[in-house]
């Protein structure tokens, strides 16, 4: 087994070693990666999308369709975990993870700051690093941390039961809504209007996506955590 595995790794390593040879040097500004599509984004991205953070511009605007499918992937993970048979009965489920008092203290101390940081990431995402996903991931991490402190019940209370399925579906649904709006306004699915008088609409659409991704992503990450722990 081990020998077979080593042989496979050696073969793959050799293949990669050959493959690396012919690749364009990545630090060179004239590499194809900087010169073709990338160049246009750098040149006209701000004007075309209204976002100074080009990563955000690519994620939400130029390649928004990828992001739409991606939020569907997270949703799929949630549906997957919820569709599995419940592991064991309540009786043989282990108690909550033991947590040291130091951790409890630190989590309580940091929680508001994490939340603040996540919100800052969310709303300043168009001009600084950050945006929906990063904020969502932080919300999710916060959820997990609070779950440790508040216990399962307390963490479950953070998201009201009746709103939960809606929040979990928030990102795909908002994407579809924004796509439909773009369809109506510009004639293309997920199109963002570029006319100057519609800039406010464009910004509102982007913001709606960011918020939905952050909330939806965060709630789903938290739910994944809870389902696994339960």
């Amino acid at each position, binding site marked *: *087994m*081990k020998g*077979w*595995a*080593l042989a*496979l*790794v050696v073969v*793959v*390593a050799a293949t*990669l*070693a050959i493959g*690396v040879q012919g*690749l364009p*040097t*990545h*630090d*060179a*500004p004239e*590499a194809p*990666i*900087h010169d073709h*599509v*990338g160049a246009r*984004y*750098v040149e006209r*991205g*701000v004007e075309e999308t209204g976002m*100074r*953070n*080009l*990563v955000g*511009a*690519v*994620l939400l605007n130029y*390649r928004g369709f*990828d*992001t739409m499918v*991606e939020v569907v*992937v*997270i949703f*799929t*993970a949630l549906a*997957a*975990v919820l569709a*599995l*048979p419940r*592991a*064991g009965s309540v009786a043989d489920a282990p108690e909550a993870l033991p947590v040291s008092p130091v951790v409890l203290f630190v989590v309580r101390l940091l929680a508001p700051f994490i939340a603040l940081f996540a919100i800052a990431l969310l709303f300043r995402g168009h*001009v*600084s*690093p950050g945006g929906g*996903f990063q904020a969502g991931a932080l919300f999710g991490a916060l959820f997990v941390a609070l779950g440790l402190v508040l216990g399962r019940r307390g963490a479950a209370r953070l998201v009201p039961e009746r709103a939960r399925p809606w929040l979990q579906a928030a990102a795909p649904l908002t994407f579809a809504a924004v796509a439909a709006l773009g369809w109506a306004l510009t004639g293309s699915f997920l199109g963002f209007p570029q006319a100057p008088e519609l800039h406010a609409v464009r910004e509102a659409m982007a913001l709606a996506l960011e918020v939905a991704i952050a909330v939806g*992503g965060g709630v789903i*990450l938290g739910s*994944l955590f809870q*389902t*696994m722990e339960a």
Partner: protein
Amino acid sequence: MAPFGVDLDYVAVAALFCIGLYMLVAKSNLLKKLLGLNVMETSVFAFIVTSGMVEGGDPPLLVAGAQPPFASPIPQAMVLTGIVVVVSVTAVALSLIVQIYAHYGTLEVDELKERP
């Protein structure tokens, strides 16, 4: 970074890929296999992000004071998507692993193969 004409970044990425692959195929423990898969996946992300770098380049943030050349935004967007995809797959895999342990009482592949 390329001393002696060798692109060290790409070499490191390839090495990480191989370490992950080794864990995936040689380890018997399911959790170790999954960690190996994650290492492989991050190595591919590292490759993608690295490919978009440029010597002395700024992040692709066109705010006041930012100077070209900028790192390419496309690889970064791809990797953001990829990271989320990987965490989704990992969460599903971990749920399955927990179920397997609850049923078989082991996480070692060779022991699992012997059970019906």
